[in-house]
C-alpha cells in the first residue's frame, strides 16, 4: 500500500515534468490527452488506495485479520497508517524525515483531490488552447502539492507541500485567468503567503519549545511524536493561546474564515474554471485540514478556550455574511464563491464544536463542499464557455436550451443547500448538531444559513435556467447541450453526492477512529462552560432497560 501512495504522489509529478519537457513539441490536442491519462492514473491509484484501506479496516473488524496498524505510540492523537519514514537529514537534535502516511481522513481527501483534478482537466479540454501543456503541468503540480499535504505527517514536509500549492495556482490564475488576473493572482499569493508565514513562525516556536526540553521527542518535527509528547507535557495555557493564534493565522486565511475571505471571490472570478474547481474543491480545505491536524492535537486547551468561542463566532458570521453577499451577486461565479465562504463556515462551525458529531460533520463537509462546489464551478464554466458571460441578468430560461445542464444544476444546487438524501445535508446537519451541544446559540444562528442558502442558490437557478428563454449574444454557432466529455467531468461528482447522502456509513466508518482519537484528546480538557451534552439521564437509561 505504501507503493500505491507513492505512485499516487508520483504520477502527477512525472506527468507534469513530461509535459514541461515536451511542451514545445506537444500540440494542444496531445497535451490534454497526456494530462488526462496522468490524472486518471492517479485517480485510479487513489481509488485503489481507498478501497484497500477501507477493506483492510472492514476485514480486521470482521474476521480478526491483522488490522492496519500505526508504528506511532498509542498516545499520539494522529495515527497514520500505511507509513513510510525516511530520514534524510540529521544534525544534532534536529532530524528531518520524509514521513508519509495516510489515515481515513487523508485517504478520502486524496481521492477527492485526484477526482476533482480529472474533472478539471476534462472541463478545460476546449477552453484552454493557449500554452496547454504548461496549463496541464501546473494543474498536475497543484495536484501533487495537495496530495502531498494530505499524506505528510512531518511538520516541515507538511509546510513545504502546503506552500508548494501556491505556485502552480498562482500561474493558473495569472496566465490563464480573466481580465484582472494579475492583480487577483498577486493578491491571492501574497495574502495566503503572509498568513502561512505567521503559521510557520508558530510552528518553529513549538518545535523549539519541544527541543529545549530534555524529555522532548526524538523526532521533533514528526507530527504524531510531537502530539504524543505534548499530550504528556502540555504547553502552558498563556503560551498555548499565543501559539494557537499564530498557527491559526495561515489556516484562517486559507479556509477562509470571515473576515479574511476577500481574496477568495476575486481569485475565483479571475481563475480559469479548472483553477476554481481545485481551489474551492480542495485547496481551501487545506485550512480546515490544518486546524484538524495541527491546531486541535497540539493546542487542545487553546482550541477550547479560543477556538470554540472566537472561531465559532467568526464561522457563524461567515455563514450569514457569506450567504447575504451571495444573495446580492449578479455574477454567478462570484455567487458560488461567496457560497463557499458560507459553506466553509459550516465546516469550521462543526470543527470547533470539538465533539464527535461536529468534527465528523466538518470532515464530511470538506468532502461535500469539494464535490458540490466543484460541480457548481463546472456548470458555471460550461455556461461561460457557451455564452462568454456570467452575468445572471443577461440570461434566463436556459433550461429550454440546455436541459441536461439544467438537470445537473438543480441536482447540485440541492446538494449544496443541504437537501436530505444528498451529501450536503449529512455534513451540515452533523456540524450543526455538534455545535448545538457545544453552543446552542451559535448553532441556531448558523442554521439560519440553511434558509439563506436555499434563497440565494434557488434564485440563481430561477434566474439562469427557468423562465422565458433569453440567451446572451453568442456568435452564429449553435449552442449545444452538455456533451459526453462534460458529462464525464460532472457525473461522478453527482453520483458521489447521492451516494454519500444515502449511505454515508462506509465513509463514516473509515474516518471514525481518527476522529475518535482527536475527540478523546479534546475531551480531557476541562471545560468550564455548562455543556448541553445529550443527557445520559437516568430516565432514558432506565426506560431502555
Amino acid at each position: 500500500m505504501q507503493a500505491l501512495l507513492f505512485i499516487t504522489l508520483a504520477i502527477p509529478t512525472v506527468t507534469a515534468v513530461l509535459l514541461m519537457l515536451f511542451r514545445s513539441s506537444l500540440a494542444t490536442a496531445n497535451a490534454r490527452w497526456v494530462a488526462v491519462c496522468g490524472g486518471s492514473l492517479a485517480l485510479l491509484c487513489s481509488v485503489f488506495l481507498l478501497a484497500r484501506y477501507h477493506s483492510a479496516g472492514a476485514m480486521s473488524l470482521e474476521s480478526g485479520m491483522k488490522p492496519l496498524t500505526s508504528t506511532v505510540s498509542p498516545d499520539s492523537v494522529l495515527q497514520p497508517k500505511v507509513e513510510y519514514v525516511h530520514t534524510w537529514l540529521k544534525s544534532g537534535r534536529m532530524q528531518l524525515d520524509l514521513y508519509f502516511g495516510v489515515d481515513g481522513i487523508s485517504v478520502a481527501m486524496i481521492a477527492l483531490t485526484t477526482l476533482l483534478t480529472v474533472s478539471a482537466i476534462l472541463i478545460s479540454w476546449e477552453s484552454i488552447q493557449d500554452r496547454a501543456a504548461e496549463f496541464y503541468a501546473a494543474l498536475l503540480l497543484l495536484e501533487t502539492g495537495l496530495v502531498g499535504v494530505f499524506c505528510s505527517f512531518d511538520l516541515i514536509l507538511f509546510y513545504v507541500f502546503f506552500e508548494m500549492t501556491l505556485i502552480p495556482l498562482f500561474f493558473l490564475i495569472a496566465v490563464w485567468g480573466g481580465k484582472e488576473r494579475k492583480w487577483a493572482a498577486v493578491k491571492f499569493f501574497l495574502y495566503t503567503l503572509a498568513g502561512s508565514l505567521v503559521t510557520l513562525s508558530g510552528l518553529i516556536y513549538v518545535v523549539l519549545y519541544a527541543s529545549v526540553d530534555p524529555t522532548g521527542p526524538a523526532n521533533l518535527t514528526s507530527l504524531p511524536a510531537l502530539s504524543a509528547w505534548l499530550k504528556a507535557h502540555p504547553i502552558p495555557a498563556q503560551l498555548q493561546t499565543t501559539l494557537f493564534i499564530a498557527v491559526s493565522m495561515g489556516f484562517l486565511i486559507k479556509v477562509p474564515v470571515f473576515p479574511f475571505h476577500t481574496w477568495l471571490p476575486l481569485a475565483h472570478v479571475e481563475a480559469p474554471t479548472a483553477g476554481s474547481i481545485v481551489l474551492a474543491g480542495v485547496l481551501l480545505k487545506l485550512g480546515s485540514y490544518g486546524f484538524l491536524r495541527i491546531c486541535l492535537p497540539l493546542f487542545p486547551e487553546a482550541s477550547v478556550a479560543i477556538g470554540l468561542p472566537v472561531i465559532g463566532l467568526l464561522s457563524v458570521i461567515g455563514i450569514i455574511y457569506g450567504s447575504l453577499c451571495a444573495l446580492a451577486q449578479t455574477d454567478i461565479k462570484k455567487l458560488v464563491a461567496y457560497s463557499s465562504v458560507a459553506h466553509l463556515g459550516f465546516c469550521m462551525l462543526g470543527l470547533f464544536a470539538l465533539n464527535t458529531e461536529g468534527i465528523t460533520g466538518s470532515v464530511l463537509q470538506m468532502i461535500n463542499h469539494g464535490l458540490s462546489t466543484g460541480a457548481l464551478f463546472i456548470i458555471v464554466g460550461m455556461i461561460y464557455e457557451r455564452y462568454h458571460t456570467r452575468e445572471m441578468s443577461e440570461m434566463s430560461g436556459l433550461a429550454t436550451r440546455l436541459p441536461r445542464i439544467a438537470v445537473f444544476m438543480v441536482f447540485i444546487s440541492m446538494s449544496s443547500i443541504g437537501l436530505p438524501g444528498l451529501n450536503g445535508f449529512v455534513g451540515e446537519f452533523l456540524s450543526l448538531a455538534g455545535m448545538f451541544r457545544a453552543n446552542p446559540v451559535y448553532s441556531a444562528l448558523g442554521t439560519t444559513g440553511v434558509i439563506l442558502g436555499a434563497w440565494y442558490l434557488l434564485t440563481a437557478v430561477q434566474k439562469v435556467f427557468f423562465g422565458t428563454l433569453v440567451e446572451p449574444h453568442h456568435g452564429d454557432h449553435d449552442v449545444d447541450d452538455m456533451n459526453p466529455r462534460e458529462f464525464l467531468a460532472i457525473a461522478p461528482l453527482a453520483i458521489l453526492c447521492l451516494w454519500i447522502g444515502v449511505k454515508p456509513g462506509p465513509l463514516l466508518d473509515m474516518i471514525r477512529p481518527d476522529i475518535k482519537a482527536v475527540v478523546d484528546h479534546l475531551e480531557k480538557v476541562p471545560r468550564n462552560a455548562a455543556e448541553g451534552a445529550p443527557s445520559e439521564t437516568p430516565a432514558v437509561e432506565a426506560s431502555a432497560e
Partner: protein
Amino acid sequence: MSEELLYPLLWLIPVAPLASAIVTALLGPKVLKYRSHLPCWSALAVSFLSSLVLLYSLPSVDSQANKPEIWRAGEDATAQAEQPAGEAATAQPESTDGGSAASGESEESRLAAAVAALKAKSDAEPKVGPEIVAFGFEWLHVGKLEVPFELRVDSISAIMLSMVTGVSLLVAMFGSGYMHHDAGYPRFFAAVSMFVFSMCMLVMANSFVLLFVFWEMVGLCSYLLIGFWFHKPSAAAASKKAFVVNRIGDFGLIMAIFLIWTSFGSVSFSDVLGNPATIARLHSVAPSLMPAICFCLFLGAMGKSAQFPLQVWLPDAMEGPTPVSALIHAATMVTAGIYLVARCTPLFEYAPLVQLTVTGTGAITAALAALIALTQTDLKRVLAYSTVSQLGFMFMALGCGAAGAELVTPAVTAGMFHLFTHAFFKALLFLAAGSVMHAMGDVIDMRRFSGLKRALPITHWTFLVGAAALAGVPLLAGFWSKDEILAVLIAAAKTSQYGLFFGIVLVIASLTALLTAFYTFRAYFMTFCGPEKFPEEAGHHPHEATPIMAWPLRILAVSALLIGLAVGPTHLFAGYLQRTTGLTPVEGHFHLDVMALSVFIATTGIGLAWMLYVAMPTVPAKIATVLKPFYALSQGKFFLDEILLVLVVFPLRAIAWLSTLFDRLVIDGLIDGVARVPRTLSDRLKGLQGGPVTAYAGVMWIGMVAAVVLAMTLL
C-alpha cells in the same frame, strides 16, 4: 395476516413508488414516453393494496409482546434486525391475557381506567398501541447521534398511508388524462412517484431525523412539480418561494430535533414519544424545555401546512399542474404539519401555551384565508385558500388539549379526522377544477365562463358533491369531521381555565364555517350555473373529461359522499386512531346540538351564496362598491405578500447589498490598506537615500550629537 408477512409488505409500500420513480426517470424520456404512467400506476396500486392490508391487519399485531424488543432495538439497532419473529411469537402468550382482558371490559370501566391513567400519567406504564417496526440499515451513526433507516407503522401512520396511496393512485390516473401530450409527461410521473415514496416514508419514519429527511424530500418534489412548467416565470418564482418559505419552518424543525436529541438522548419516536415517564421527568427538571421543543415543532408545521404568516407560498403553488395541486397542495403534503403535531401529542401535553398558540394560529389562518377566498375569481385560488382555511381548522382542533387532559385525545381525533375527510373532498374539488380547466382551454378565471352544468355533467355533479362536503352539508364527509372540531371547541370553551379563549375561537370557527359554505357555493354557482358561457380558448365544444379523468372523479365523489358516514358516526376512525401510542381511547358521542348548529351554518352559507349569485346576480357587484375598502382588502389577499415583501424581503436584500458594499470597501479596503503599508513606508524611506551628501552629513551630525549626549547622561 401473520406478522412475518407484514414486514415485506411494509417495505413494499415505499419501495414500489421509488422503483417507479427511478425507472420512469431513466427510461421515461427515451423508452416509455407517453406510457410513462404505467410504472407509476402499478407502483401506486401495489402500495395502496399493501397499505389496505396493513390497515386491516395492524390492530391484530401484538405490540405488547414485541415492544421491549423494539426498545432494545433503539439501543442497538442491529439486535432488532437479528431478532427472529418467532421470538416475538413465543412471547405472545404472556401478554395476550392482558390484551383480551382489556377488550372484555365494559365501556365505562375502560373509560374510567383511561382517565385514571391520564391522571397518573407521570408514573404510568407506557401505553403502547399496535405497531410494527422494521429496521432497514444503519443510516447515520455518529457519536451520540444514531439514526437508523427504520420504518414504523402504528395506527396513525396506517391511516395516513392508506389515504396517501389511495388518493395518489386516483390522482395519477387523472393525471395521465390531464397531462396527456404534455412534453414533460415522463417527468411528471417520475416526480409524482418520487413524491409518493417520500410521503410514505415521512409517515413511516421512526425518528425525528428521518421524518425531517422526507419532510424535505416532499418539499423537493413540491418544488419540482410547482415549477413543472419552468418556462413560465410565475411558476419558477412560485416554486422558489415555496421552497424558501418552507425552509423557514424547517429551521424550527431542525432546532426541535436538536433540542429533543440533547434532552432525550435519542431522536427515535419509540424512545421519545413512547415514554410518558421520561417526558414527565424532563419536564419537572426543565419546565421550559417542552414548550421550547413544541414551539419549534409547530414552527416546522406552520411552514409545511401553510399557517399564518407562512401561508404565502401555498396559493402561489397553484402554478403547478392541477393534479399536483390536488395531491400535494391539498390532500397530502400540506397535512404533514398536522400529522407532526398530532404525532407529538405526548410532548404538546406539557406545553399548554404552545397548544393555545396552535389553536390561535389555526383560528387566525382559517378566518383570514376564508375572507380572502370570498372574493377570488380564480377557481383554483379559491380552493387553495380554502385548503389553507381548512388546515387552520385542523390546527384549531389540535390545540384544544390545552383545556384539559381529557380533551387531548378528542382534539387529536377531530384534527386527524378532518385531515382524513378533507383529503378526499379537496382532492375531488381540485380534480374537478382541473377538469374544468382542461375543458376551458386552461382558463380558470370564473368570470370568463359560467353555466357549465350541461357541457360538463360529470364534472358538475362531482364538483357539487365536493362542494357540499366542504360546506358541511349533513351526512357528507366534511360534515362529520367539522362537527368533531366544533364539538371539541365547545368542550374546551366550557372549561374554566382557557374558557374565554376557546369561546372566541369557537365563534371564529363558526363564522369561518359559514364563510366556507358561502365561498364554496359561490364558486360552484359562478362556474356551473347561470347562462352558458365559454372562453374562446375552449373552442366551440368544450369536451367533458375523458374516462380516465372521469373515473377518479366518480370514485372520489362517492368517497366524499360516504366515507364520513362510514367511519365517523360508527366511531371506526376514532377507535382505530386512538390506539396510537400516546392517545387514550375515549368513547364517541353524538353531538346533536353541534350538528344542529352546523346544519344551520351550512344552509345559511349556501343559501346566501344562492341568493347573491343565482337569484340576484347583480347584487355582489353593488356590495363590492359599497364595501369597497373591505372588498379590496380581501381581493388583495390582505396584502400579505406585499407586507412580507416590505418587511422581510426588501430589508434582507438591502442588507445583502450593503454587505457586498461593506465587503468591498471596508474589509477588502483594510486588507489592501495593510498591504500598502510596506510600499508606503518604502516610498518614504526611499527619499532618504536619494544621494544628497549634505543631508547624509546632517543626519550623521545629529546622530553623533545624540550619541554624545546619551553617553554623557548615562555616565
